[in-house]
């Protein structure tokens, strides 16, 4: 008699986990040099989880300063010159949380920052709408669906990572291309200058009064 109720309770718990409203917004923002930009979100309930992800997509050395501040100006996360970050923290106080990025370290490079802020608010327990389905029937289906959802999230995250890496590779190759041109031109000029210099110095050694002494 105990087992079905425990199973039922687990189902309820897993359901509520699955249906808790998560407000997630994913945006990409272009930070101008020396710009500081903040985004805000409100956590209503104490103990709600906040997930913060960011990755610098392009610009300079692909790093940015970030600061997450909670209510009453309490600093929760603080980092400088980071390429990407993925944090989950529990909001101990309800209120406004600010997520700030700053590009103070660049004088002319503008950075594209891809970020996602998700606040998991009050969990609402939802019973399945179909009456007459026993918990055992649902459990294996629920579990598979839950697993599938988790794996799809992993795939999505991987794809985001690959996109970021691909942007960096692209930028490296472009920089290589322009570097080749610049250095070739500089080398050619130096070569021509040096050869002229050599010729005229040798001429100088053999000219005029020094003729015959060398």
């Amino acid at each position: 008699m105990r087992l079905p109720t425990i199973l039922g309770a687990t189902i309820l718990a897993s359901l509520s986990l699955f249906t808790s409203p998560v407000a997630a917004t994913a945006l990409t923002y272009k930070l101008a040099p020396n710009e500081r930009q903040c985004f805000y979100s409100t956590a209503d309930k104490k103990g709600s989880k906040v997930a913060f992800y960011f990755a610098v997509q392009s610009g300079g050395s692909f790093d940015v300063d970030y600061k997450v501040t909670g209510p009453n100006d309490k600093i929760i996360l603080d980092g400088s010159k980071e390429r990407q970050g993925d944090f989950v923290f529990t909001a101990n106080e309800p209120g406004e949380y600010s997520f700030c990025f700053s590009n103070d370290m660049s004088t002319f490079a503008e950075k594209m920052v891809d970020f996602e802020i998700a606040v998991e608010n009050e969990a609402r327990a939802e019973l399945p709408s179909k009456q007459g389905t026993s918990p055992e029937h649902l459990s294996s289906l629920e579990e598979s669906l839950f697993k599938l959802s988790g794996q799809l999230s992993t795939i999505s995250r991987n794809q985001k990572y690959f996109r970021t890496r691909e942007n960096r590779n692209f930028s490296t190759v472009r920089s290589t291309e322009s570097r080749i041109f610049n250095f070739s031109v500089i080398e050619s000029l130096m070569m021509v200058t040096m050869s002229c210099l050599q010729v005229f110095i040798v001429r100088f050694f053999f000219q005029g009064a020094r003729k015959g002494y060398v």
Partner: protein
Amino acid sequence: SYALQSFGLYFYIDGVTPKCFFEELPKDTLVVGQYTAEEYNPSIQAYNNNPQLAIQITVDETFENDHRVVNQKGSSSGRFTFTAGDSGEHRLCFWASHASSGGWFSNNPEGVKLTLDLAIGETSEIESKDKDKLADIVQRVKDLNSRLQDIRREQVFQREREAEFRDQSESTNTRVVRWTLIQLALLGVTCAWQLSHLRAFFIKQKLT
């Protein structure tokens, strides 16, 4: 919209400069956004709804000469939808203004508080509309299906990007070869010039 105010991400804009976001979207991606804007009221020292406030939303395709695909002007709160016609970088901008006078006289950088709930991809549309219905298993399977389609679209997009990357690598490779040959040729010419010049000089100086 009441739920939106508690759960969405918000930021501050002034009435002059727009706030822009750049999103790389694969072809046929659906983007749905819900926004609520509030203006700072100095008399109560807080933000409240101002019916005169108008928000303009523009979406430009930066890869197509900033071709404007969406230009929507609406009231202080509303919803907008658009589908990406081509794969590439799209710039979404939000502008705030006063509906009646068509301009703005406040230069307060935190004059308008904009709450935004942006959903990119098919699945998210379901999420932002019918959170209650998610409990139904059939709905959940549909949601998983849509997410798979999103993943598929992103993969196609990645293939296109990779082809571009390969082209770029090949062009860099060609450039290395070309400039090395140019430099070698220059080196040969310089060497020949040096020798002939010095020979002529020494003959002239009657040393050779």
